[in-house]
């Protein structure tokens, strides 16, 4: 099987508009979850969000594009992270357009972030909005395909909160099987009334900044952003910088409930175990876990149980959603990049706001640590619809 390496990363989140700003944010130990400046929702007044700290207009102005008509916030976030990733990997335009290059994206909200316009357009107005072509889940991907002239295999996955983790998996498999030489993979989602109201209706939207793995957690903080990774076959990467090798992945169904995980943590346990098996690693060889860690009652309790079932003694773990909020379809690839920052800079970032850990004996990381020898990292993503995915990245 062909080895797959990460050669490029692009990330925009509440912590910053590129990978470097995100790294600084993580090192500062300060959350990006704040009062919203741009989110047009009732909840902007009462709740905290992991909002990208720029208006949609400013974001659109920040990069050069041939067409800027009808770009939603999801679209522009995706384009910014995509653009950073391909430049980071040094991909030439002809490589991006090659049939050997796949593009696998993910989103859960897609263009539904423009809900007011969508709602108005659905009533058949005489003059439709500029967003008419922007609503589908795949709209951001189709715009990237057009802008960057992608011709090879392209896809958009929506498995709720594990979407972009599955995009990483699909891109990896395309390379491993020799179908393509490289794949640009990841996902994007922006704050939307749709998800804020949805999670609020489910009573899992916290009005405080989320407190993953804290006994008194009140739910998730909604975030937004985009994250893309460039994956390349080993033969393409001999003279390139490489962030990690993708060594394992899994995808299982918890087969329990559409909006919560089984109390016995069966899906969580299976996802991690299958990823370990595919990587040929024993549980004791994982040095750090970037958890799904949303801050909801159900997730954190079940995930912790799953971790203890697989690992016994749980390796150092954190919930970086305490910095970025839960950016849904972008979360899997966003957290993969954060895990790769830990791996490459040999440092671990503290999990924020966990004052009274669910399990006193094994709390999440409390302090920043550097010079940590990290060889293998695990990143978990669990979604509505029982979708459980785990990824393992290994040091070169």
């Amino acid at each position: 099987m062909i080895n797959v390496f990460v050669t490029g990363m692009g990330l925009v989140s509440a912590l910053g508009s590129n990978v470097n700003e995100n790294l600084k944010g993580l090192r500062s130990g300060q959350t990006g979850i704040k009062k919203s400046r741009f989110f047009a929702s009732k909840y902007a007044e009462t709740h905290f969000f992991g909002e990208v700290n720029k208006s949609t207009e400013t974001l659109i102005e920040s990069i050069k594009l041939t067409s800027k008509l009808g770009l939603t916030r999801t679209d522009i976030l995706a384009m910014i992270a995509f653009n950073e990733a391909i430049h980071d990997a040094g991909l030439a335009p002809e490589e991006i357009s090659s049939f050997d290059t796949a593009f696998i994206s993910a989103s859960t909200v897609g263009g539904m972030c423009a809900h007011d316009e969508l709602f108005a357009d659905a009533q058949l107005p005489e003059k439709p909005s500029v967003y008419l072509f922007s609503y589908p889940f795949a709209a951001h991907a189709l715009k990237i395909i057009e802008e960057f002239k992608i011709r090879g295999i392209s896809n958009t996955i929506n498995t709720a909160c594990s979407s972009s983790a599955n995009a990483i998996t699909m891109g990896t498999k395309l390379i491993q099987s020799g179908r393509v030489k490289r794949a640009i993979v990841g996902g994007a989602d922006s704050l939307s009334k749709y998800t804020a109201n949805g999670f609020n209706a489910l009573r899992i939207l916290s009005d405080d900044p989320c407190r993953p793995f804290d006994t008194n957690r009140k739910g998730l903080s909604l975030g937004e952003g985009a994250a893309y990774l460039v994956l390349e076959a080993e033969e393409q990467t001999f003279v390139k910088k490489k962030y990690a090798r993708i060594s394992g992945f899994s995808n299982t169904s918890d087969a329990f409930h559409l909006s919560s995980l089984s109390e016995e943590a069966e899906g969580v346990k299976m996802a991690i175990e299958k990823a370990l098996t595919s990587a040929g690693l024993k549980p004791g060889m994982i040095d750090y876990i970037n958890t799904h860690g949303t801050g909801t009652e159900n997730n954190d309790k079940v995930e912790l149980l799953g971790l203890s079932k697989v690992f016994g003694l749980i390796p150092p773990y954190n919930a970086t959603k305490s910095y970025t909020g839960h950016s849904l379809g972008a979360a899997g690839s966003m957290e993969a990049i954060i895990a790769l920052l830990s791996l490459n800079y040999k440092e671990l970032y503290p999990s924020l706001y966990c004052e009274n850990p669910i399990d006193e004996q094994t709390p999440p990381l409390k302090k920043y640590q550097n010079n940590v020898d990290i060889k293998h990292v695990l990143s978990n993503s669990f979604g509505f619809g029982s979708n459980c995915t785990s990824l393992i990245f290994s040091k070169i």
Partner: protein
Amino acid sequence: MFISDLLCISHQKTYDLDLFNNGPIYNEGIKYFALEPDYTSLIPASTLRRMGKFMRMGVGTGLPMLQKHIGVEGIILATANGGVDDSMKFLNQIEKYQEGTLTPTNFVQSTPNSLAGTLSMMCNNKGYNNTHVHEGLAFENALLDAQMFLESNKTKVLLGAAEEISDWNFNINLLKGRFKKENCNPESLLESGTIGTVCGEGAFMFVIEATQRNVLAQIKDVGQITTENPAEIFELLRNFLKKNNMKPSDVDAIMLGYNGDARTDSLYNDFYNSMFKGKAAFCFKNLCGEFPTASAFALWLATYIINTYPIPDKVIKVKPQKEINNILIYNHYNGLQHGMILLNKAN
């Protein structure tokens, strides 16, 4: 990979295969609504009441397949829009109650992966589970996913697609100019010569197996390209045939996604005339309407054609002169996303 079983809900009587006995049925109008079966023996009434049409049709086709076939190791689905009607209902709630206290059912059901999740729950299937939403290539990507899944030492997977017509996606697509303005006679849809098409829906499920034992057909390969340049479509076609060690003359029949839209149907003419002139040619959207995952209906229909079921007159563009051992399906969505599926007869 091989198709060992399949089930389809569409605008035609496909659930009971009556289409092949009594031919197509035609209703006037540009919404080709699905003919839904009686689900009561399959889904408990209380559950059924809460299900939107997308979920109902998807469970109605997927559940019998999962019940009938033991050892299904994964569920891979495609849908561009998922439970759109639930999305719209939830948006309506947000508007109506000004982001007040809302009920979450519509929200939870509106995520496109809720169907694959529901099927996994109903059958306690803890295997691989994925949902592709890439508009006109969602189904081709699900096929590709299934292909790679079976390559990883797996034997059996449920593959499918589902799409529903709701006021929301219909109206948005109407504004985009996708549908015909005039009330189109369904019998002459493909010869209308006017712009726009008709809107379809349905659910299509296939049991896909790695080994050729008691199977109906072989899915030899799937290919895709996103482009508006016709020259690149032919580049894909040449590469696709070459990859499968075929010459154009080896292809027995072509199934083309004609939808009656004068702006983009010429691509199908060009495709056929370029290399396949004189060969058997079929169409299918005059039966099922247009929707992003319509190639799933094409695959369903092609599987029956290759198994020598009586071919409805209305799908024959060029009559077969000899036995059909393979069918190349070419479908595009709005002239931008192009997919190819090669189906072989099972030996």
